[in-house]
Each structure stands twice: as structure tokens, then as C-alpha cells.
């Protein structure tokens, strides 16, 4: 993948792959299986070592940033899940506060100096407020504020690591690792990665559909109701285009032998999916952070 992978394109809180795969989403997704699919063994004996481009994690490592940039997708996902699981042990606001403090102490390892994760954290703030407030209203505790603070803090402890860590996840890289390391079915993984590569394209399609509708006099009115109807019908146009695009993508993939690959010989991949030292470090440190609520509960 990413022959254009300049280190400068490394994210500032936005998943890098979403942008990186913008330019040629179909080609990129399709190239991968083709490498190993056909060409009568040429790919097996070819100059693999010289030609293998760096993985996204290696590119990120080369660029400046917080230490977590060197980690691959599996350790990011695993630690996010572990931290969410660990937060389920919280049953008091003090435990949640200690756990949150530990997470905040780890923040410099995850967030770069220049990049502000603020935009990714807005939904979390809204969610914590709504959970806290609804607990005050809908709970039956003797101390509603205490219960609400516990519920809201617990939610922050549960969600925060995932929101920040998944910002470093590259969809294409995640596909490589899920298929090669976790042995998930290759066809499904590649199809999902191909679809995720169209994320940015879909945003452009939205603009095109909206512009085309405006030219035809189908703009949104002023009232919220008319805006909602306009958004719904534009979304329908987006869906129609997405399904048609999927059909074309599938034809392109099959034309390159996608369906047949992996039947006679194992499917091969353009990029390796190495588990690196940074992954082990993140997993160990993340498991400790995830265990904080449980430890505090057992000790306290």
C-alpha cells in the first residue's frame, strides 16, 4: 500500500488510513490479493525483500509523535477492549477517579504535543453528561449525585482509552493484521478494507449528490422538517451510489482473480503484519492500566 506514504501525512487525531486510502481506493484494495493470486508463482520467488514497502506502523515510527505511534492495530484494539472491560469493575466514584487519574498520567504517551484530540473527545463529554444526568433522573439511589458521578466517571474511564488509541488505527493495516495474525477469512477482511477505503469517496459523493439536487431545484428549505427531508433524500442518493459502486468494485476485484485466490494456494499479502516490540510494551502497559479499577476495588 501507500507508495505515497509521506510521514507528514501522519494523523493529528484522525485515522491516517482514512486519508491515505483516498486517492485510489479500488485499486489499492484490489492490488493486495492479486499479488499472490495469480501470475504462476512469480510472486513467490520474486524479489520480495527489496520490493516490500514499509508498513504504516513503520512509517509512523519514522515520523515524530508520541510513543504509541509505533504500535500496530492489534495491540491498539486489544488495549482498548481491555480498558473497556476493566472499567466494568468500577462501582464507586473514587475507584473511577483513581483509574481516570492513571489514564490521564499516560496521556503524553498517546497524544502528540501539537495534535489536539479535542474534536474526538466532544462526543465523549456529551455522553458522560447525558449518562450522569439521566442517572440523577432515572436512578433510585439514596445519594443520586454520588451515583451519577460514579456512572459518568465510569463511562469516561470506559471510553477514553478507546477513543484516543483508535485514532492511531489504520484500517488497511488492521485488515492485514486481522487476516494474517488472527487468521480471519481473507475475502471478508479485504472486502471490508476495500469498503472502508471508500469512506472519503462517500463524503465527496454526498457533496456531488447535494450539488446535483440543488441545480435541479431540490434544495433544503429553512424549516428543520424540510432540512430533515432533504438530508434523508440526499442520504438515499448516497446509498444508491454506494451500492452501485460496490457492484463495480466487485467486478474489478473478480476480474483480478479475487474470488479464486486462496482456493488452490494460500492467499498472499502485499504487506507483512509484524508484531513489534512496541506492541508488546503497549499490551503490557495497557493491561496494567486496565487492571487499575479492579486493583483499587480489591485493595480499597
Amino acid at each position, binding site marked *: 500500500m501507500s507508495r505515497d506514504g509521506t510521514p507528514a501525512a501522519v494523523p493529528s487525531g484522525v*485515522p491516517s488510513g*482514512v486519508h491515505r486510502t483516498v486517492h485510489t481506493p479500488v485499486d489499492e484494495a484490489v492490488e493486495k490479493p492479486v499479488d499472490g493470486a495469480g501470475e504462476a508463482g512469480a510472486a513467490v520467488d520474486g524479489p520480495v525483500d527489496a520490493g516490500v514497502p514499509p508498513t504504516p506502523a513503520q512509517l509512523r515510527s519514522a515520523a515524530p509523535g508520541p510513543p504509541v505511534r509505533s504500535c500496530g492495530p492489534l495491540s491498539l*484494539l486489544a488495549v*482498548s*477492549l481491555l480498558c*473497556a472491560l476493566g472499567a*466494568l469493575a*468500577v*462501582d464507586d466514584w473514587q475507584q473511577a477517579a483513581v483509574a481516570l487519574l492513571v489514564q490521564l498520567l499516560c496521556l503524553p504517551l498517546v497524544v502528540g504535543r501539537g495534535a489536539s484530540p479535542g*474534536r474526538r*473527545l466532544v*462526543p*465523549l463529554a*456529551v455522553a458522560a453528561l*447525558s449518562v450522569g*444526568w*439521566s*442517572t440523577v*433522573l*432515572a*436512578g*433510585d*439511589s439514596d445519594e443520586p449525585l454520588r*451515583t451519577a458521578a*460514579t*456512572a459518568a466517571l*465510569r*463511562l469516561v474511564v*470506559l*471510553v477514553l*482509552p*478507546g*477513543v484516543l488509541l*483508535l485514532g492511531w*488505527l489504520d484500517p488497511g493495516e488492521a485488515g492485514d493484521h486481522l487476516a494474517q495474525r488472527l487468521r480471519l477469512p481473507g*475475502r471478508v477482511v479485504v*472486502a*471490508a478494507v*476495500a*469498503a*472502508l477505503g471508500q*469512506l472519503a469517496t*462517500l463524503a465527496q459523493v454526498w457533496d456531488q449528490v447535494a450539488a446535483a439536487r440543488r441545480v435541479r431545484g431540490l434544495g433544503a428549505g429553512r424549516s428543520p422538517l424540510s432540512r430533515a427531508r432533504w*438530508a434523508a433524500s440526499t*442520504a*438515499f442518493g*448516497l*446509498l*444508491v451510489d*454506494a*451500492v*452501485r*459502486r*460496490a*457492484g463495480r468494485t*466487485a*467486478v474489478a*476485484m473478480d*476480474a483480478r482473480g479475487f*474470488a479464486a485466490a486462496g482456493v488452490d494456494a494460500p492467499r498472499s499479502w502485499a504487506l507483512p503484519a509484524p508484531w513489534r516490540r512496541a506492541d508488546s510494551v503497549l499490551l503490557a502497559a495497557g493491561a496494567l492500566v486496565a487492571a487499575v479499577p479492579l486493583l483499587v476495588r480489591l485493595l480499597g
Partner: protein
Amino acid sequence: MSTTLTRSSSPGRWRTVDLVTAAVLGVAFGVVFWGWAVVYAALSPVFAVLAPLSGLLGGVWLLPAVVGALVVRRPGAALLAELVAASVEALLGSHWGVGVLVSGAVQGLGVEIAVAVFAWKRWGVGVAVLGGVVAAVLEGVYELFAYFAGTWTLGFQVLYVACFALSGALVAGVGGWALVRALARAGALGAFGAGRELHRRG
């Protein structure tokens, strides 16, 4: 249709177009979710008065699973579409962090249960409604325990799940079914059973 490159006889064998369409539907709904999350946040003060009613907004989250199942008509289609939609949400940064991936799995499984009850043979509005309801109930229970820490009173919890189920039946079930019909009418589903049936009938 030019899109039926690989033919399949058994419902278990996926064609490439099945895989890609289920995944792309997931991505498209992920984009819709992104907009819906803004609406959700804007409307949440309204529900501050009676929090369990916010379940009424929940049906939208189940749409990819229902639409994916009705379009692709294969075991696992609902799960794939919903998981991809959840991944998009997680990548863009969601309310619930990595929790959306669990939600995606729970919701997808709910719809899978409903279509499995009919042995992957019925694809009408009834199956869609059942799928929406099962997925909504599973997701509602998961949310109450994972996010709201089980702090609500039993009455409120039941009301929340009931609202979610109603929304799942109407928005995801009837709405998803109507959406698939509209997609078929627009001529987008030529490679799938839903599109072929429409043309055979009329």
C-alpha cells in the same frame, strides 16, 4: 446484470459482490451515523426530562444490519454490515469508544437470529421487524449494563428497552424494508434477490 460474475448455488457461499456490498452498505451507514450522532446530541436535552424515551432514537443504529440482511440474504450479512458501520463510527471517534464495536456485534447478531429463525428463506417486512426488535432488545440490555451501569430503576430500564424495541420495529424494521424496496426500484439491486423479485413481479 453485469454484476453477477460469480454464481452461487448455496446461501452459505458468498459472491464477491455480496461481500463488498454488505461492507459498503456498512460504510455508507457509518457516514449516516456520523450525521445522526449530531442529531442525537442535539436532541438529548429534550430527553433529559424522561431519559428512557431516548430509546426511541435508537432504531437508526440498527438499520445497516437489517438492510444488509435483506439485500445480501446470506448468513452473516447483517453482522458484517453492522460491524463495518460500527468500525467507521469507532474510527471517526464515537460516544462510546471501542464499545461501538461490541454494540455492532450485538446488533448484528440480533438480526442474524431473526433471519435464522426463518432459515434464511423469508425476507419480507415481518422478518425485518422481528430483526429490528431482537437487535433492539439485545442492544438495549447491553447499553443499560455497560454504559448506564445498571443504575436505573427497573421500571425505567423496561421503558428504555420497550422504546428501543418500538424504534427497532418501526425505523429499522419497516424503515429498513422500505429502504431496500426503494433501492430495488432505483435499479441498484440488480445483482441481488431483492432487485430481481421486484422486476419479475412488475
